[in-house]
């Protein structure tokens, strides 16, 4: 009898034994917000991110020494549709998985010859928000095959590793305890579909990587730098974990 159960369990196990279970049902970050913030997120005027989307749109069309984003990519509504939903992504030129911010800066520096946009700067967040908005409602669809797989594995391992003085892993809160309350807040599934987002705690927009750094800080662990391999790998793992969920960027968060 016991042997039969073990066998059945083995048969029922996923083909790829290294793919951890994902939250069921999958829920976007906005599902854990108050009605006020949910309404704000979908209000394209009052959502403060709309100001940064405007900023990104201005950057998109503004010529720098005769060249502009629009010069190569045309209308963002067509050329950028679905793009943010596929990041982080393996980049053949860099021969590694890169995040959207690095892809943007590749264009800004290499394509326009303009100065690199700093992490969390208004222009970089503006471009990210403008590009991400073109994927609103589209399903997350990153690739973890081929050269991206090792990065996904690294992200997965980080996700399950306990760190910091509080000795918590991402999974401790966002798989084991989502939906439960911590003080006045409800723990979310940690789905990355709303970023960049306007976070009230920051009183300004920020990237998913800033949010992840805040989690490292929250469990009292050393924060990896912006754009570091650890954050990119974690971002890829989270994006895979959210596969199929509709993008809701640019979001509003507590």
């Amino acid at each position, binding site marked *: 009898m016991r042997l039969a159960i073990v066998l059945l369990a083995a048969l029922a196990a996923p083909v790829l034994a290294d793919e951890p279970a994902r939250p069921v049902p999958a829920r976007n970050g906005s599902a854990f917000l108050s009605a006020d913030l949910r309404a704000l997120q979908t209000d394209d005027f009052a959502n403060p991110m709309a100001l940064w989307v405007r900023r990104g749109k201005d950057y998109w069309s503004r010529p720098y020494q005769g060249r502009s984003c629009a010069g190569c990519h045309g209308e963002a509504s067509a050329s950028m549709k679905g793009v943010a939903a596929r990041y982080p992504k393996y980049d053949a030129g860099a021969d590694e998985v890169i995040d959207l911010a690095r892809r943007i800066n590749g264009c800004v520096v290499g394509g326009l010859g303009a100065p690199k946009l700093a992490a969390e700067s208004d222009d970089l967040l503006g471009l990210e928000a403008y590009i991400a908005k073109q994927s609103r409602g589209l399903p997350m669809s990153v690739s973890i095959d081929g050269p991206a797989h090792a990065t996904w594995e690294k992200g997965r391992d980080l996700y399950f590793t306990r760190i910091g003085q509080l000795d918590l892993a991402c999974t401790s809160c966002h798989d084991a305890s989502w939906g439960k309350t911590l*003080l*006045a807040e409800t723990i979310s599934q940690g789905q990355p579909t709303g970023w960049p987002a306007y976070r009230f705690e920051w009183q300004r927009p920020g990237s998913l990587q800033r949010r992840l750094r805040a989690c490292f800080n929250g469990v009292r662990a050393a924060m990896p730098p912006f754009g570091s391999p650890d954050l990119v790998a974690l971002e890829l793992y989270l994006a895979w974990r959210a596969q199929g969920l509709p993008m809701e960027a640019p979001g509003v968060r507590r």
Partner: protein
Amino acid sequence: MALDAAMKRRAFIALAVGGAAAAALPASAQEVQDIRPLVEAITKGAAPEEGGIEISLPPIAENGHSVPFTVKVPSPMSETDHVSAIHVIAERNPRPAVATFHLGPWSGRAELSTRIRLAGTQKVTVVAALSGNRFRIARKEVVVESAACLDEGSLT
């Protein structure tokens, strides 16, 4: 479950650490201030009528950084009988004078919305100035929650 116990213990740690952080804020942010001088500066001695102002605030604000706020003062908004100013006062903010709005018959209605900061659970007071040196005053209680997870230094 062991994890539940661990979560509770950590929630307690977060609460304890959060309490310490709150104590480090300027004391003025924590104290309810006497706003009577502010109100008297507006009314210049006239006695305000209680009520006649609808204040909309969430009963529990999940965050003090940006609380949706709407105020409505029923008024004909005519040349002779209208609301000329609406003052918003938050008694527990380090600077209680939040904003002063100026309106007139050209507004048609005395109704405004904005998003305000509230340094903790408190009463928000609204004073409306009406034609003929008349005033109304009203208050609304709002509970302000604090964040569960600490987040300082994520930017630098």
